[in-house]
Structure formats: C-alpha cells, structure tokens
C-alpha cells in the first residue's frame, strides 16, 4: 500500500481530567489512513469513534500523542489547523441540521469561502460538489429548508465536499434514511472517491455497508483499536466482534451456520455477492459431477 496521508500516533484523550467526571475516551491509539483508501471505522456507542474523528481535523486537541498530516503535526500552529480543516473534511451525524444559509448555493459555498478562495474557484467547486452529490442545478437557488430529508443530507455533504478534502470523514452518513436514500448517499460518496481519489473514512455501525465498500476496517472498543485489517480478516473474527457488542453482517452469520451444518465454504464470506459466488461454486461442482 502507498504512504499514509494521516497518521495517528499514541493518541490519548481524557475528558474533564482531574474532576469526578474524568473519562478516558481514547487510550493510546495508533492508526494510519492511506491515500485514496476506503476505511471503515466500526465500534459500539461510547467506543470513542466520534472523539477520534474529531481529532482528525483538530476540532479536539489530544491529551497526549499527535496526528500527522503528510508528516506534519496538525496542531502545530493556527496555520496548520486551518490547513487540516481544508484537507480533512468532516461530515457529522445528521449534517442536514447544520444548514443555515438562504440558498443551497450559499450553504455549499460556506466552506470554500472560509478557505478564502477566489469567487471563480468557489463557483466551480460549488457546482462540482453539487454534481458529485446529485444536487440538481435547479435546486441551487432554492432554500435548503424547502428540500426533502434526503436532499438536505446531500446538500450538507456537498458543503464539505466543496472544500475538496483529500480525506473525507463521514459519521453515520446514512443514519435515518430509507433504503433508497441510503443507496444514493453511498453512491454520491463513491463518485467523489472515484473521481478525485480522496481517501474516505466511514464511521458506521451498519456492518453490511462497511463490509461492502471498505478496503480496510478498524474496530474500536473501549477507546482502543481492537482490530484492523481487510473486511475478510475482521469478519473472520466474528465471535470477538459479537463479544464487543457489534453485530456481524448477516451473511457471516449464515456462513457460520452453514459450516456448522457441514457445508464447506471457502474463506470469509460477508456479502450477498460473495455468498452467491461461493454457493454457485458448490452448485457448479454438483452439476459438473
């Protein structure tokens, strides 16, 4: 794999240190995010996921440890903080509740404007971001508050994409949407990834979605990185995941049960497609015989 764009080194974060409410949210975390990869971060509520991703663009400062963006500490100076905000885009949960401008166009332009880009470049980026997220040209002059839930979500994501981040971090980007809306958002994110080569970090507790898209996964538990690896490697440890309170993809469950019933399946199976091809192998074997 190529070199990491973001490097998290020995990151520890303690909330309200020295008070009765003291809580260690992150405990000595090491994590690399590589250029152009899709990383899925999974973990139950309270595992430290949100605290971790807010460190990635200096919204929260580490209690100890550092975060390096292309080798430089992001918390080094005011300038480095500003720079990381542009290079690491962060989409929070339910981002549609952060829309505030009079028009969709102006809301998407908020980020690029804060980056002090010239007007022509801002315009280019707004239209590009709108295209990536499937926000039609005709919506740009509308008020964001007149749109449907799914459209609002896409506008909010466009607002971060317009900053053209090299790492796009999304916290539960599909939460609360219907299946059609979930699919669309995922496609939007993938379009941005394909066309710009940006790294994508998706924080989710939906195993199915993490499994089908991620190149690599990191599992957080009690403020520590419990596992990293390809989805195959991670889902091969189904029992551990379940012990951490995480649901495994339903296809992994089916595969485990099939094996228990004496059907031999190759390697790790965690998506419907993989299961189909694994079973077609068996079926093919039978037909050939």
């Amino acid at each position: 794999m190529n070199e990491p764009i973001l490097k998290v080194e020995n990151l520890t974060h303690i909330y309200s240190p020295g008070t009765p409410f003291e809580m260690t949210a992150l405990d000595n975390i090491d994590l690399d995010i590589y250029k152009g990869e899709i990383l899925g971060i999974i973990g139950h509520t309270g595992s430290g996921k949100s605290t971790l991703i807010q460190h990635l663009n200096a919204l929260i400062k580490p209690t100890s440890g550092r975060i390096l963006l292309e080798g430089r500490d992001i918390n080094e100076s005011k300038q480095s903080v500003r720079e990381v905000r542009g290079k690491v885009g962060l989409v929070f949960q339910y981002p549609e509740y952060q829309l505030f401008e009079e028009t969709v166009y102006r809301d998407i332009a908020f980020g690029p404007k804060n980056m002090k880009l010239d007007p022509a470049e801002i315009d280019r980026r707004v239209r590009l971001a709108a295209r990536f997220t499937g926000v039609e040209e005709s919506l740009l002059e509308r008020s964001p508050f007149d749109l449907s839930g799914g459209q609002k979500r896409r506008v909010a994501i466009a607002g971060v994409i317009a900053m053209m981040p090299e790492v796009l971090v999304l916290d539960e980007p599909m939460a609360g949407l219907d299946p059609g809306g979930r699919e669309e958002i995922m496609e939007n994110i993938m379009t941005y990834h394909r066309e710009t080569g940006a790294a994508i970090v998706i924080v989710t507790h939906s195993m199915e979605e993490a499994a089908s898209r991620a190149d690599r996964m990191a599992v957080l538990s009690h403020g520590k990185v419990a596992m990293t690896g390809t989805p195959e490697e991670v889902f091969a440890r189904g029992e551990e995941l379940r012990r951490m309170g995480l649901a495994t993809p339903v296809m992994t469950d089916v595969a485990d049960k099939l094996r228990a019933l004496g059907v031999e399946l190759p390697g790790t199976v965690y998506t419907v497609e993989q299961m189909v091809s694994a079973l077609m192998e068996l079926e093919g074997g039978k037909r050939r015989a």
Partner: protein
Amino acid sequence: MENIAINIDNVTFFYTPEDGEEAPRDVLSNVSLKIEKGSFVAVLGHNGSGKSTLARHLNALLLPKGGSVTVFGMDTRDEALTLEIRRRVGMVFQNPDNQIVSNVVEEDVAFAPENLGIPTPEIRKRVDEALRAVGLYEFRAHAPHLLSGGQKQRIAIAGVLAMRPKCVVFDEPTAMLDPRGRRDVMDIIERMKNGLGSTVILITHHMEEAAQADRVVVMSDGKVVMDGAPRQIFTRVRELEDLGLTVPGTVKLMWELRNRGVDVPLAALTADECAGALAEHFKANNRATSA
C-alpha cells in the same frame, strides 16, 4: 368486529394549505386497514409514503379529512373520547431526545399516569412496573440526558407502558439507535406482544425488524400497496425494490440463487432459516454427487 383493535376505513388526509398555496396533495388517499387485537403489524414505505401520517391518525393526533378511524370502538373524531383513545393507543417516536419531558427518569415515566389523574400510590406501582419491564429500574433516579440513545428510547417506552395501553404504535423507534439499542428495543416489542398480548404497530425501515411481525403493510404515495404475511411480502423482491425498499439479506441471497437456477426456497427470513434451507439443498447435492 370484536377482535378488531383499529379500523381504518377509507381514510384520506391532506394538510390544509395556507393562503396563496396551491391545492394540497393527498398525504393519505383512501387507506383502509383492519388491525386485529393482539397482532404485530409492521408498516414499510419510503420516506414521504405517508406511514407516519397514518400512525398519527391512530391516537387522534391527526383526524381524517375523509373516512374514519375507529379505535377499540371509539371514533377518533369524537373529541370527548380523545383522552380515552390516547390512553389505549400509546405512541413511541423516532427521536428519544424529543419525547422525554423530565430531568429524572421516574418522573418522566410518571408523566402520562399523572396526566390521567391516577392516584399517587397507583402511579408509583405502574412506574416501577414499567421501568422493570424495560430493564431500567436501577436508573429511576438518573438524568435521562446522560443515558445512551437506546436507554432513552426504553424510558420512552416505559412512559407509554405506564398508561397500560392495549396497543402501542412505534414510529421508527430504532432509526437513531446503534445495533445494541436496536436489539434491546426489538426485544421489548417482542415481549410486549407475547407476554402482554398488546397490539403492536411498528413503522420501520429495517426489513429484518419487519420480518418479525405477523403482518407487513407496505405504503407508497399515501396508499397501501401490499398487505400480507412477511413471507408473502418479502418474496416480491422486484416490486419492493421498485418502491425504493429492500428485502432482508437472506431473501436477497435466495433470490439471486434462484435467478441462477438453484432450486432453493425464496422465503428465508432469518439466518437460521436461510442456512437450514441451503444446507439441505447442498448436502442433498453432495449425496447425489457421491452416490
């Protein structure tokens, strides 16, 4: 009619337009459903299909513009019966943060019985009972905003159970929860149905949750477009996908296999069922091969 809990008869609903607005679109058009006592009905549909609007008709939060809704024999349009209807049909909403009224768990659970004018010792009994039912009795003196989303949603359920309703409507109760919270809420729903014999109506986007129901109703553009047992509904894969919905992963797997000429049953609503059917098919194959 005796075993009918809720009778939705030809209901039409639209939001009255403000001055200058164009004529309204029907949010519900000619919806008819009979919901049996003690049944567990899941309602599916894409966003904007009218599911939540329908739900709000069941406890007189909204009144039909055409047709009628009869709840345990009471017409929701009769204002004198509104409280009677609401105490029988409890409702749990999507966002746990926006339905908790108190800074103390037990005070929150007591809210409905207090409104109903139930005597103090009886409220205490009901609150304790409801909190035990959702497994949060130990948290009775806590502040709800310091609990997890799943715990908050269970408090909201306890607040509804304290009314001792005959029917509970859940409007996407798990949409904002993590897998653990979701499982806890679904366990409670299962217990309510089996243990208490309550009628349960669950609006959801999660097909796996809907698969646990006795009956699935699918809505689209303000109309009921499918209605039947989960097994019947989830095997209509194409139609559901055209409506912007999905089917449980296990059904999807079977469907894909059948499309490739593998002779497996389509209806497999759980991992166990799916694995069982597949094992039978492929082991039969193996036997056929070795024979």
